[in-house]
Structure formats: C-alpha cells, structure tokens
C-alpha cells in the first residue's frame, strides 16, 4: 500500500521513488534525469563552441574535443531528448486515453532504470580513462582503432540504456492499443498519443538493428570478433548500414512526439480543433513508414553507386510531402482561431518557421549530387540542429510550460518564460544560421580547430555568441522550474482552454488517476463536456467501485543494477583486446549477471497480484486531496 501516507521521511521518499511503478512518478524521474543529461550535453557543446570561437584556439585539446563531440551527440539523442520525450509520454498517454496506468507498470520502471544506469555507466567513462571519441555514429574503422576503453563504454552503456528504451516503447504500444477508455476509438485519440504510438512502433523496429550492431562491435572489441576488421575479412560499411537503419528512424522517434506536443499546444491556444485531424494521423504514420526507407542518404558519399543514391535521394524527398501536410495543418488550425500568445504558444509559433527552415535544407541534402558538397560539412551541422533544436527542443521547452501544471500542479512564470524563449530562440538562430554558410565555405564538421585566413573566423565567432545565449536561456528555464516550487497550486485546467482528458482530471492527480473510467464521446472529450456545460468535465463509463492497482517493486532497480555491475566486468575482462584487464573482472561480470537473472527469477516465481483500493478508501483519499464532497 503506498501513497496515502502524508509526510514521509527523506529516506522513505527516495525508497518510494526507487520502487515506484506509478507512471506519473516515473515521468517526473524521466524529466529530472533527462534534464540532467541535457545540461551536461549542453555544457559540452559550450566547451566546443568556446574552442571554435577563434582560429588556432588551444582551449581544449584535439583528443578531448573528439570526446566532447561524441558525448554531446550521444547524450543529446539517447540520454536527453529520448527520456525527456518519455517523460511527457509517460505522464500524458495514460491520462489522455483515460487509463489508470500503462499496461506494464513493472516494465515501465525497469525501462527507466535500465536507461538511467546505462547513461550513468556511459558518463563514468570521463573519470575512467576517457570517453568515447569516434563520434556518436562510431564508424567502425575509427572505433576499432580507438585506444582505451572509451568505445567499450559507448557500446555497453548504449546497449543497457537501449534495452530500457525498447522495453518502454513496447509498453506504450500495448498501453495505447489495449488500455483506451470506452469510446476512445483510434480516431478519437489525441494526436500526441498517436505520435507516441507511431514513435514507439519505430522504436520497436529501429532499436534491434542498433542492438545487433552494438553486439557485433562488442564482439570485435572484446573478443577480436573481426566483424568490422577489413584486414580479417570484415566490412565497416556494414556498421554504417546497421547504424543508420537505426539512426534515421531515431530522428523520427524523437521528432514525431514533438509534432504531437505541438499538435496539442496549437489547438488549445487557438481555441480550435486540430485542422485535418485524420490527415495528421495519416501523415504521422506515413512519416514513420518512410523513415525506414531512407537511411542510406547518410551514406551518399560512401560509394554505394548511382542507383542506390538516386533511389534514396528520391525516397528522402518524399518525406517532405507528409511533413509539409503537417505544417499546413498547423497553420490552418491557427487560421480562424482565437490565438492567445502564452509561452507554450510562443514556442509553437517559433517552431513553425524554424522547423520549416530545417526541413528545406533536408531536401537540399536529399539531392545526392549536391550532398557530395554538403555532407560532413558544417551545413549538415546547421541542418540537423535546426531540426532537433528548432523542432524537438522547442517542443520540450514549450511543453514543459504547457504541462507543468499536470506534472506538478504548479504554473511556470509566464513573463520569465517569454524572456527565456526570446533569449534561447535568438541564440539558436545566431548559432546555427551562419553554420550553413560555414559549410558552404568549405568547413568540415567535427574539427577541433581551424587555421585563420580561410574566411571562417567571423561566422564561427557569431556562432559561439549564439551558443552562449542558448546557454543563458537554458539556465533561465531551469530557474523558472525551480521557482515554481514556491508558486500556488494551479488546479484543474489552468490554461482555461484544455481540450483533452488530461485537463479534465482534478488536481492534484490521485495515484490511481481516474476515480471512475471516463466515457469518451468524441475527439477532444473535455472540450465537448465543457461546451455542453458539464461542470464535472467528464462523464463516466462505470459506477464508483474498487480499483485494482499494482504493487511497488524494487526488482526493476535490482535487475538494472546487476547489468550495470556486470558491464564493468565485461569492460575489464581479460578476454578483451585492450591490455589493461583486471583480475576482478570475471567475478564481477558473473556477480552482476547473477543479480540480474536472480531478480528476474524472483519476479517470475513470486506471484504479485497487486492490491485493491476499496470504495471507502477512494472517498477518503479524495476528501484529503480535494476537501469534503469532492470539491475544495
């Protein structure tokens, strides 16, 4: 029995969070962990920009710069953007579809701990002999050549956190398919839930190729497997394929939920239903599908031949069509609406032109012969930052403002939020716009320095100034989040124009979410009820009765911890090619795996049926939360 106790000691709270299976608490944990890694990776970016501020700078060394660029990319994509989006998916998807929790609460917790401990493992590399330094793509010839254990940290850390992502993805698919409230048909699902579904399906298909690639790399590094060693008959181009078969969908795994978030923000603050809902759903699925058909556009210069290049060029261009549909639908949602420029809306409004700018440079790079010039130059750096910062980070920041009251029952400060937006937004364009021209002027990417007299000095300086502004923006954002602790409770539907079920639920949200499962009568159910004058905000599909809830469990943490420990054993194993093996390596490997499998056996053997929350207890909890009679 968790949660009705009121005041808990600090230790008990920590234990509560370690063992929790509640999607809302896990969402908060994803949010905190994601923010932490976002800050680390952002700091790495600032160090790199300081180094590139002027020609021939010696602020950081060449080797360390490569570690920074590798960790910046890896962390931002795997350990910052993914968990931050998972935070929103965890918090919102069950609420939006009227569910008590996700389908497998235990797996939800396991997914988080695998991700988190994998991420911690990867970051320990900085203190244990050097971080990976072969780029986030870790192309095989360089990563096999790389001395030390950096690449081993990359392989093992990503493998562990990749399991977590895969498990979470599966969980969302099952949740969305099976746990929708009565009346919540597929075509009445909020668009964020749709994008969460498609993005999870992409995870399901995209992560296995990465897992395969990482296993092969692990075998090469640890046991001299020769999968990628061309002198022994291996082939490094296979790594490129495996990586990008994962790597390209990964972009859509991140950007689709970001689209989903904006598809919630824009209708809310336009007071108008999403224009062309069904075509938005169709476009989402189509983008997800095409996302798997275009990976080789990352390899136009690898030498796949003109036929492969031409096919992948045209396929890539095709993605612009459904993406364009989305952009026009957003604009037409605004058209004829009643626009209130709140901070989330400001981010949404900034997103549209920034993302379009990133999209069109994507089409330019899809033109294979032109890409021969643009590939691996600063142009591509500008392009993907326009997509990722302009598309995903603006979505995350905007949604943080938008959904803060759902997460914490508090509002963020609007004034500070708008200032943050402008500082960050201007900084973002300053940083990356000029990088298009740096690339066209011949500057390759991933360079730790450059000579003067190549015409790059001025733009690099501007870019660094912009990066500093982005840094200030992020700090302002974090301050805003911290200040919100002191603010009064926001209550239900604080924006006043909420449309979907998550806004209908009373605040603070009880741990079982909905007292009674709601009945959904159409798209935007809360909006429908409000228009019909229903003060309750929902109608219910069932009478008040007992609620079946899962028990907390420490096993997910233990399973993940076992793998975390085993990874150190694998890293220093005497089987490995690296020369500094440790005698304790094999015992540690075995102990770690025993912990993991032991915990899995315990989980399998021990029946855990959860518990029932009785009607009287529910009423008691609600009285505590909302006062007598359910209304405070």
């Amino acid at each position: 029995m968790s949660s009705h106790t009121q005041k808990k000691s600090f230790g008990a709270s920590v234990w509560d969070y370690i063992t929790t299976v509640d999607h809302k608490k896990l969402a908060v944990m994803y949010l905190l962990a994601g923010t932490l890694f976002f800050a680390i990776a952002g700091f790495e970016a600032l160090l790199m920009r300081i180094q590139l501020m002027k020609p021939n700078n010696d602020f950081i060394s060449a080797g360390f710069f490569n570690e920074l660029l590798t960790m910046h990319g890896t962390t931002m994509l795997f350990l910052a953007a993914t968990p931050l989006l998972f935070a929103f998916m965890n918090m919102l998807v069950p609420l939006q579809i009227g569910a008590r929790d996700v389908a497998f609460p235990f797996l939800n917790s396991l997914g988080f701990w695998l991700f988190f401990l994998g991420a911690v493992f990867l970051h320990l590399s900085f203190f244990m002999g050097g971080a990976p330094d072969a780029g986030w793509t870790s192309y095989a010839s360089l990563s096999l050549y790389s001395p030390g254990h950096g690449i081993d940290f990359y392989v093992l850390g990503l493998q562990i956190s990749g399991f977590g992502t895969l498990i979470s993805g599966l969980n969302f698919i099952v949740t969305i398919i099976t746990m929708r409230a009565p009346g919540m048909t597929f075509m009445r699902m909020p668009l964020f839930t749709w994008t969460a579904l498609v993005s999870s399906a992409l995870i399901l298909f995209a992560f296995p190729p990465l897992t395969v690639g990482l296993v092969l790399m692990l075998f090469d590094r640890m046991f001299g497997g020769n999968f990628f060693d061309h002198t022994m008959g291996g082939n490094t181009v296979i790594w490129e394929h495996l990586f990008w078969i994962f790597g390209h969908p990964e972009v859509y795994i991140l950007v689709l939920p970001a689209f989903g978030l904006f598809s919630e923000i824009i209708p809310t603050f336009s007071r108008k239903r999403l224009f062309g809902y069904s075509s938005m759903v169709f476009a989402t699925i189509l983008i997800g599908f095409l996302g798997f058909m275009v990976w080789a556009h990352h390899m136009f210069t690898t030498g796949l031949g003109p036929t492969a290049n031409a096919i992948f060029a045209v396929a890539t261009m095709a993605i612009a069509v459904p993406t364009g549909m989305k952009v026009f639908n957003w604009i037409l949602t605004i058209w004829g609406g009643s626009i209130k420029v709140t901070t989330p809306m400001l981010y949404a409004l900034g997103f549209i032109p920034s993302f379009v700018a990133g999209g069109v440079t994507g089409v330019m790079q899809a033109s294979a012969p032109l890409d021969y010039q643009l590939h691996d130059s600063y142009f591509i750096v500008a392009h993907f930052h326009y997509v990722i910062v302009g598309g995903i980070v603006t979505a995350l920041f905007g949604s943080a403002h938008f959904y803060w009251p759902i997460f914490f029952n508090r509002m963020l400060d609007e004034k500070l939020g708008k200032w943050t937006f402008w500082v960050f937004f201007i900084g973002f364009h300053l940083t990356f716009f000029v990088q298009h021209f740096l690339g066209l002027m011949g500057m390759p990417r991933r360079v730790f320095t450059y000579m003067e007299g190549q015409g790059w000095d001025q733009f690099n300086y501007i870019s660094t100034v912009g990066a500093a502004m982005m840094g200030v923006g992020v700090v302002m954002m974090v301050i805003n989040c911290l200040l919100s602790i002191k603010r009064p409770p926001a209550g239900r539907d604080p924006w006043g124009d909420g449309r979907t079920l998550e806004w209908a639920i009373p605040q603070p949200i009880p741990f079982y979410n909905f007292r009674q499962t709601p009945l959904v009568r159409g798209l935007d159910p809360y909006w429908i009820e409000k228009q019909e004058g229903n003060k309750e905000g929902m109608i219910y599909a069932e009478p008040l009765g007992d609620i079946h809830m899962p028990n907390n469990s420490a096993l997910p943490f233990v399973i993940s911890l076992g793998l975390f420990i085993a990874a150190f054993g694998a890293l220093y194993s005497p089987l490995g090619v690296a020369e500094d093996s440790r005698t304790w390596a094999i015992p540690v490997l075995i102990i770690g795996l025993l912990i993991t499998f032991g915990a899995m056996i315990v989980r399998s053997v021990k029946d855990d049926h959860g518990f029932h929350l009785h009607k009287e207890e529910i009423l008691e909890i609600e009285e505590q939360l909302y006062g007598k009679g359910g209304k405070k």
Partner: protein
Amino acid sequence: MMKGLKKWRLFSLLTVMMVFLSGCGEEYLSTLKPSGEVGKEQLNLLLLTTGIMTLVVVVVSVIYLLAFVKFRRSKVGENVIPKQVEGSHTLEIIWTVIPIILLLIIAVPVVTATYKFADVAAMDEVDENGNKTALTVNVTAKLYWWEFEYPNQGIITAQELVVPTGEKVYFNLKAADVKHSFWIPAIGGKMDTNVENVNKFYLVFDKESEGLKDGVFYGKCAELCGPSHALMDFKVKSLSPDAFDAWVTSMQETEGQTADKESSDLGEATFANSCLGCHAVSGSGSAPGMGPNLTTYGDRNRLAGFLDHTEEDLKAWIKDPAEFKPGNLMMNADGTAPIYGNLSDEEIQALATYIMGLSVEK
C-alpha cells in the same frame, strides 16, 4: 502601394543575398565559388533547390504571419469560440500536390547528375597503343596525410596533388588505416576513402591555381578520423596541360634519387639515417611509403598540409611532430619521442635545410 511594398521586399531580399554572396568564402576553398565542372553543376543544384525552398519558406511564413496577425485573441475578442473546423479536402489535395510537383522539378536534375558524376567508364579507355587515355590518380588517405600516385605515369607524391586543367581527372580512393573522406570544396563534392574498397569518381579543374592567394586550392578530410582530423589538409596545384607534362617528366627523372648515409652534407646523411626508412626522395620508382614522399617538399605550399612552409616550422616539427599533429604516426608507441629518436639541434638544422631543398620545379 501594395505593388511598391512588394518591390521593396524583393529589393531587400536581393540586398541580403548580395551581402551573403559577396561574403561567400575564399575562391580556393568555397563551394560557392567553384572552379570546376563538377562543383559548378553542384552549385547550380544548390541554387535551384535554394530557390524552390526559399519560395516554400516565404509562402509558409506569409500564410503563417497573416494567420497570426489576423486571429490574435485581442482582435477576435476574449469570449469568442471559433468555429471548430474539421478540415478541408480541397486544401489537403492542394498542399499535397504542389510539393510533389516541386520535388519532381528537383528530382529530375538530381537523378541525372547522380548518374553523370558516377560515370567513370572512361577510366579504362585505351588508345591504339594500349595506353590509358584518361589521367588517373590513386589517392590513399593515411593518418593524417594523403598520398597521390599516378599509376600510368609511374610517379608518386604526397600532400600536394598536382593536376592538369581542362580534362577529367579520375580518382581511385582508398584509406590505409581508418576511413577518411577526400574533399576539394572549390572543385567538387567529396567521396569517402573506405578501408575495404576503392571508390572512383572524377573532378575537373578549370582554372590554374597559380593566381590564387596561396597558389593552390585547399583540400580537406571530411570524415572524423581521430585527434588530428581537423589538420588533415592537403593542397591542390592545377597546371596548364603543358606545365603538367613538364612536371610529370621532371618527376620521372627523379627515379633512383636517394639520400646517401656517407654524404658530406650533414642534412643528407641525417636524412638517410633517420628518415629515409619512411620518406622517399624519388618521385618515381619508389613504392608507397610509410610517410609522405618528400621529393617535391621544397615546391610545396605547406608543412604537414597546414603549417607554414618555413625552415623554422620544419625544425619545430622535426623536434616534436606530436605537438602539431596529435596522434600522428611519427611518434614511438608510448608517444614520448619521435621514432627517429631525439636529434641534436645541429642535425635538425641541417635536416631542415636539406628537406627544404628537395624540389623538382627548381
């Protein structure tokens, strides 16, 4: 009034573009000022796609700004509930079909050019005597330098590619250790040097490099290849066909040239003892080396591809190459000293003078 406004907009747009075009980089380095057929066609594609894409951005931005300005809540009223429109089939069809047409306009030249740039059939054509008619250069990328071998001429050089103007020069690209990428921005797009296979493509050099600021085009490594990736530059000298033929002949004449251990010149003797194992001094008849071929060192524009071509820099380089190019293979296994050991200042001075004197251009 509206018309005037539009003209004014067009004018300001043109001004902005002018500013950027004037600042579009250096002639020896920028993809925006190409000096070869491949680069020029790529620039045309860039202009075509940029034009269409700018149109898209402008159209989207105008509709979007219009929507934003017209439908602010302060304008439409606080309590107005807008009509909840579901969508519009006509509009959906319009904004699906128009992008498809725009993309087709781009796709046609893209596919054509893709096949054109990959056409290297002429590499194997021979004249009646069985000699290859096209000039081929075998490029081998190594940590962190470039080797250029001319198989039909039987010559080999490093760090500075020498090519004739006005004809297609074909390249066989390969990496010796890790993957690199061969890129001469002002001439044309790049191609990777893989470790397991040979990539082929061609470039055309329209212009003699003599008039350029340094007398060379700049070449770059475009694929992350380790700590000194940023320093893995090379230079390209494009000569008129006659001058190129003369260069080839003088390179061929260096066959058999070597450094003598017994030489009275301290520089040559030191070179023979400490350097010759890796660096050849004949441009013909010598096998690909562990280190860059130095036959034409005195004619080059840069030391190690990026440092100033002076004796002072050369001495500092010989003393501690790793300080300038971290991770380079001139150091012994633990990275404490160059593989040729620590030379005396006198030896280094003589060595530098000797190496600076290696030249075929005189």
